[in-house]
């Protein structure tokens, strides 16, 4: 079985971090598994972790009163779920649901925030990675907002 250190070091989200830095993160991390249909977290719950997806697929569902639930994003192997742990009030904004068998590493938020406070270089390296993920998601959401396939035509 692979150690948590190896699992984190292999994950694209942590690419470029040296061994010692990954070693520090391991102290905040643990392996988690979900079956299809199980929730990693629910909207409104405290955002006390984030998830580094190693295998499977996680759907991010949004719902509101009187509206049917919708999947607005999925995260597959190599991706990361959750950034609400970074921003007050530290609550999830959506549901995260396993649509397949999911193996992930859950990283404890307060443990990680403490480490980042103690070591700003680690904090900066992590923030760069989180910002990269947020940037891609924002771009994806903005482009989909254009409803390209609905209004523009090509083919």
């Amino acid at each position, binding site marked *: 079985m692979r150690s948590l250190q190896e699992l984190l070091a292999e994950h694209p989200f942590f690419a470029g971090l040296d061994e010692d830095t990954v070693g520090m993160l391991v102290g905040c991390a643990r392996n988690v598994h979900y079956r299809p249909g199980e929730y990693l977290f629910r909207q409104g719950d405290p955002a006390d972790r984030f998830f580094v997806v190693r295998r499977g697929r996680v759907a991010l569902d949004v719902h509101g009163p009187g509206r049917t639930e*919708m*999947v607005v*994003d999925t995260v597959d192997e190599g991706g990361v779920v959750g950034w609400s742990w970074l921003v007050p009030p530290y609550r999830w904004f959506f549901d995260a649901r396993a649509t*397949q068998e999911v193996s992930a590493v859950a990283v404890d938020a307060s443990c990680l925030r403490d480490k980042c406070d103690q070591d700003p270089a680690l904090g900066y390296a992590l923030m760069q990675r989180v910002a990269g993920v947020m940037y891609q998601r924002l*771009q*994806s959401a903005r482009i*989909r907002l254009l409803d390209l*396939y609905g209004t523009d035509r*090509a*083919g």
Partner: protein
Amino acid sequence: MPVDVADPATAAADALLPRPFRVVANRRETSDTVTLELEPLDGDGLAFAAGQFTMLQAFGVGEVPISISGDPARPGLLVHTIRDVGGVTRALCAAEVGDVLGARGPYGRGWGVSDARGGDVVVVAGGIGLAPLRAAVLEVVRARSGFGRVHVLYGARTEDDLLFGDDLEEWAAEPDTEVAVIVDRAATSWPGRVGLVTELVRAAAFDAPRTLALVCGPEVMMRFVGAELTARGVPASQVRLSLERNMRCGVGLCGHCQLREYLLCVDGPVLSLDAVRPQLGIREL
């Protein structure tokens, strides 16, 4: 006076004359898109290269450019997949088995699929853009061992808007072939991916310097996909896009589809990213 067949004016007029084709099948793909199968009434079928189009005519209504979505190895059957967006496409979508439509062509430069031989092929389609790419994938699949890894990456609005479901399954069953689908948004019953087609490009494994990428979809999508492919290391000269600006004559006479020095109906619709990159960022030209 006998007509001189070499007379350029007559030749040009002939090129603009549609041939009659009978509708032998009309298959509904989605709520607004159908696939028509047509057979010629007056002789041989249209030999075509994947990525070429015809000017398809609903008599009395009008004529529009439509890509050929059929199998290049079966020229006897002219296959078009058409989305109902306006007057002419509505009439074409409503054509019934037995009806006669006009077609002239095939026109334009296609994908040049054989240039990918020996290397990897990455096909990226958005929406109805899968129609001209279907012909390319069928060509690759027919000569599967001649190519390396093959990826078919397809983005659509919702699961109800997905075209060619049976084909996607068949292609996925080919060796070393990955078919990945992503939709803009979905009901919770959808087990697949939700997001943007660029995410599929990012996740796909291919040997970038030896990859030929074929891309068709809305221009904004092609701009982002082109950027993602080149960021992955695919040379811009090996990224081909089908640029489907409005066309009228189809044979380079009217200038309707001019894009800088290119007449898209004859120099295109397929052009490489390095040739058109400056234009892709520009609003309606």
